[in-house]
């Protein structure tokens, strides 16, 4: 178990001192607490020995004094020990988020959002339960159990032995059923996260569901999961509803044994009535630690399982990081890009094959090619969203792995094919990559993507909230906001991945005109299916099934009479057809 706990040590040792103080408070609390039945015992005993009311007052006062002391330390114990667990949770959650920020896109395609979220919430809170209440209650059980039993033995060893007889059974039962509960609980949790995921996806795809009248099918499939979740919960309930009353019964048997055997001891004059009473109270005291023992095993079991799952996040080391970075080589980039025998595959599936391309700084290169030919993959290698083999991509003559990620990305303005906006204001979305940018610069960036007038026509202008993923903007508006977002960074290298596909030709023309001004002196890579977007590029590259099949200027490629010329002709034929129609 300790081994499985090891990853947590750094988080716990940070609070070493507080743990020591908290545990000290715990020990004091319990040691003071166990004297209460002793006082009651003495008080009861003087009743049969013709004591005085003054004695009674003394005992009553003593009780209150003891209780007060106990209360103070009890407060300190809870505040410190449970408080630590919140601190640990806070630290862990921060570290997890920080770690997530270093993990590359591949990780996010391989892991479901819902699973990650449930790790960050449910599993984290199970771990917290282990390091807070888990530790506190096990220490409690230990100290109190030992102290109580010692005092009981002191009063009457034989009776102690007798009445504790059923208790190991209780602990064993808790352990046995605890394991069953744990196993079933894991199943229930898994079904729960399926259920959550189903609901999430169904609601995120609501437009498809509605348009295709799939509401009933969605409800039916949700219902199936709902049902199996309930079914597996039922099995858990059977065990749980049996376990706790059964434990109570075991304790009752202990009380029964005291009643009989303790009564006999009193009759024989071996113990006093006061001791008899104290025994009853001590047994009551023991109920909680014994139950807590089982409860704590549950907490710890859940906590360990959750810890394991949580650590799958930490164990996923970022594949794309700065381990080969040599910041001193290249403090700032000019933007010359070179690809040398670049091969790239996703999970063994070769996507890019032996790509060689040199883009001098300041040039504009366009990429065309069929759907799925690898264009997006190709450009995603430049900011290292995915990693190309070492030495295959160089910027300003330096392998990009030697450039620190932050430097590399700071010089790149990337507009991905699918616009992603945060549910924030338009303004904050535009200045996402340049938080220090002022109002005027934001407007200027919006001008470049020709969206200023539209934004200003919104009721709240630049302060309009855009909804999840930019839901309340039109397709073209989303794309243009992402263009502004990239341009505002003033990048050395600008990459537009089909970024004008949802924009009409008139607007496209204006944006391209604006961009021509911006692009002077910058390197740019444009991907598009439209001839109009790419024909003015310095160089056009045709990608076919992951290889460069043609390369050259518009005129050169037309003269070549290959794929590009055919593409071009096709668009012209279409035009001609339209004219004839």
């Amino acid at each position: 178990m300790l081994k499985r706990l090891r990853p947590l040590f750094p988080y716990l040792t940070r609070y070493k001192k507080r743990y020591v103080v908290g545990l000290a408070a715990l020990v004091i609390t319990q040691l003071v607490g166990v004297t209460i039945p002793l006082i009651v015992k003495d008080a009861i005993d003087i009743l049969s020995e013709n004591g005085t009311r003054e004695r009674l007052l003394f005992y009553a006062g003593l009780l209150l004094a003891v209780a007060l002391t106990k209360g103070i330390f009890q407060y300190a114990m809870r505040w410190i020990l449970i408080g630590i667990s919140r601190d640990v949770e806070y630290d862990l959650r921060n570290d997890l988020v920080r770690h997530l920020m270093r993990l590359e896109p591949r990780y996010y395609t391989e892991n479901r959002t819902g699973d990650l979220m449930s790790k960050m919430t449910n599993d984290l809170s199970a771990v917290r339960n282990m390091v807070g209440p888990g530790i506190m209650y096990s220490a409690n059980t230990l100290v109190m159990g030992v102290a109580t039993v010692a005092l009981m033995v002191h009063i009457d060893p034989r009776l102690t032995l007798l009445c504790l007889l059923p208790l190991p059974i209780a602990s064993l039962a808790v352990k046995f059923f605890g394991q069953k509960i744990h196993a079933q609980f894991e199943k229930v949790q898994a079904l729960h996260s399926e259920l959550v995921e189903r609901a999430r996806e169904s609601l995120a795809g609501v437009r498809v569901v509605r348009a295709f009248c799939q509401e009933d099918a969605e409800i039916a499939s949700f219902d199936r999961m709902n049902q199996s979740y309930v079914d597996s919960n039922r099995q858990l309930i059977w065990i749980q509803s049996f376990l706790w009353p059964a434990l109570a019964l075991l304790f009752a048997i202990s009380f029964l044994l005291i009643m009989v055997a303790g009564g006999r001891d009193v009759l024989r004059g071996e113990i006093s009535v006061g001791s008899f009473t104290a025994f009853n109270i001590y047994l009551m005291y023991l109920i909680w630690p014994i139950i807590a023992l089982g409860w704590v095993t549950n907490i710890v079991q859940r906590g360990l399982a959750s810890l394991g799952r949580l650590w799958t996040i930490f164990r996923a080391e970022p594949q794309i990081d700065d381990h080969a970075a040599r910041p001193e080589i290249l403090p700032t980039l000019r933007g010359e890009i070179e690809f040398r025998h670049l091969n790239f595959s996703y999970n063994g599936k070769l996507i890019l094959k032996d790509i060689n391309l040199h883009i001098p700084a300041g040039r504009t290169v366009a990429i065309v090619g069929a759907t799925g030919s690898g264009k997006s993959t190709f450009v995603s290698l430049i900011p290292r969203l995915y990693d190309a083999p070492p030495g295959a991509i160089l910027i300003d003559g330096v392998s990009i792995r030697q450039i620190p990620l932050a430097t590399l990305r700071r010089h790149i303005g990337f507009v991905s094919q699918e616009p992603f906006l945060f549910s924030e204001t338009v303004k904050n979305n535009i200045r996402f990559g340049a938080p220090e940018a002022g109002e005027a610069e934001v407007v200027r960036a919006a001008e470049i993507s020709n969206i200023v007038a539209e934004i200003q026509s919104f009721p709240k202008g630049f302060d309009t909230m855009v909804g999840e993923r930019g839901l309340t903007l039109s397709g073209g508006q989303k794309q243009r906001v992402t263009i502004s977002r990239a341009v505002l960074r003033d990048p050395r290298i600008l990459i537009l991945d089909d970024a004008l596909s949802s924009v009409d030709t008139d607007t496209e023309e204006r944006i391209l005109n604006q961009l021509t001004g911006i692009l002077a002196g910058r390197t740019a890579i444009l991907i598009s299916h439209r001839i109009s977007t790419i024909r003015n590029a310095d160089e056009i590259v045709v990608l076919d099934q992951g290889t460069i099949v043609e390369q050259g200027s518009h005129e050169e490629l037309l003269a070549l009479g290959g794929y590009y010329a055919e593409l071009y002709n096709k668009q012209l034929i279409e035009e001609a057809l339209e004219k004839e129609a």
Partner: protein
Amino acid sequence: MPDGFHEEEVLGKAYDGRLMRRLLSYLRPYRRTVFFALIAIFFYGILQAVPPYLLKIEVDRYLDPTHRSPIPHFLGRLLSPKPAVGIAELAFGFFLPTVLLTFILQFAQTLAMQMVGQRVMYDLRKQIFSHLQRLEMSYFDRNPVGRMVTRVTADVDVLNDLFASGVVAIFGDFFTLLSILAVMLSLSWKLALLTFTVLPLIALVTGAFRKAVRESYRRIRIAIARINAYLQEHITGMSVVQLFNHEEKSFEEFERINRSHMEAFKDSIMAYGLFYPAVEFLGVLAIAIIIYYGGGMAMLGTLTVGTAIAFIQYSQRFFRPIQDLSDKYNILQSAMASSERIFKLLDTPTGIHDPVQPRPLASPQGRVEFRQVSFAYRDPHRVIENVSFTIEPGETVAVVGHTGAGKTTLTSLLLRFYDIQEGRILFDGEDISQLRLRDLRRNFAVVLQDPFLFSGTIASNIRLGTETITDAQVGEAARRVNLLDFIESLPEGFEERVRERGATLSVGQKQLIAFARALAHDPRVLILDEATSSVDSETESQIREGLRGLLENRTALIIAHRLSTIQSASKIIVMHKGHLREMGTHQELLARRGIYYKLYQLQYKDQERASVSVVAPALQADPEPQSASS
């Protein structure tokens, strides 16, 4: 964050009778079980008072060395005068049956209520999810998905605590308390009343505790909602965060939320830390009172030692339910908050629903008419203004216009995702608001501008839940959109796994799958909203070929920026800032020299120039298209 987009609504009251009644109404189908559980817990409560009483008898009758006890009690008379025998009788004749019965009752009660709790949760989840499936689109514009998911899952789970361990257990605690108080009063009303003097103190402490916890729980809930919203958004948009070097800033934002979560919890720890010791102290205070006064009375002979001992035990036993009650109070409070949010959702009227007397749609033709339609997503900001047009059955109509002109909105209105403010939309001559939603939407298949794929397989994404679509039809649809080669190149073919939102497919591939989905559903009216915007021209023209036969007797509404896409349209509608500005055939619109003409010119101006030199010969060399066009 402005607009409160991420904020969870915050509850008003801790206990609300109206909400409670409504919640309890969910128990109605299971009232027999609940009734049974109530009976069980009633007897359980009564039995709780028995063991200390038995102890008292044992002490008074047999153990008290002073033997000052008054006349034996009726139970005492039943018992043997011989101590050893009497104690055994007491233990096995009374104590054992009591605890066995307690065990059975508790087991039965817990089991019954937990099972009912599960049923109720099931019913609630189903109801909420079904309601969400009926709510109109503008609700989804306003509410983040994460929040809706919380309603269906986390909020319902909170209610589970209420049903499974709250409602009935509160009665249990209540009965226990009552029977204990009754027994105490009957044993010695004087000492009982003296002991009860701690009760007001408990009320005081509990009151203060509630107030403290309530505020921190409110803050905790807000913080949790924010953490979830943050995670959901940043996990899905992580590559944007990374590309824009936003890690530090995003982390700072998270750290703030995380901190407020932690601090709110610490406040609640403070409250609990004070509450538990305070209650325990009051428990000892009760013992002290019993020892001082009860002991005094015992010395005077007005109270037996057994009663004093029983009192000590009782006082501890009645503290437990009270402590429990304050735990229950938390359950109650969270349940109130959750149920308020759930009911608010369930009470959100479905703004768009089936009419009371839907008009039948016998054999749909596919005629679409917009009559002076005006629409605003948020009044009064009109996005569509007085638009009228008709699409005859079998006709293909194209919609073009600047981005943000309102093209997508037109299709959303046609599918009745939103209701219009003015004018009428007719389908086959019937106002669409007079049709059942199913009857209306069944006639359409749409390729949305943002293709959405579910996790599953390629086949399941094409078919969705429509089980009547055969494998052959799925294959045929894929063939028509030129996707067959790609799919067959995959190891699993149509059963190839699709990730969340199709993350491992290229954007064009996603679009094609969405396209195939629409074709497989074999609609009367096909709506293509930029359906091939991310697809190369080659594939696009092949799709056009594939569609040719298909569109013959179908109505089609095509939105496209690439004008080549819309050449087969018999009518072109030009939208501009929400107005319908031009309408007519390609030739007519060119002749008008308006917006369409300008868009057209821009798109082809390069080719105009080039065509003279390069393409003209190519065109002549290839006579086929010309014959096709005639």
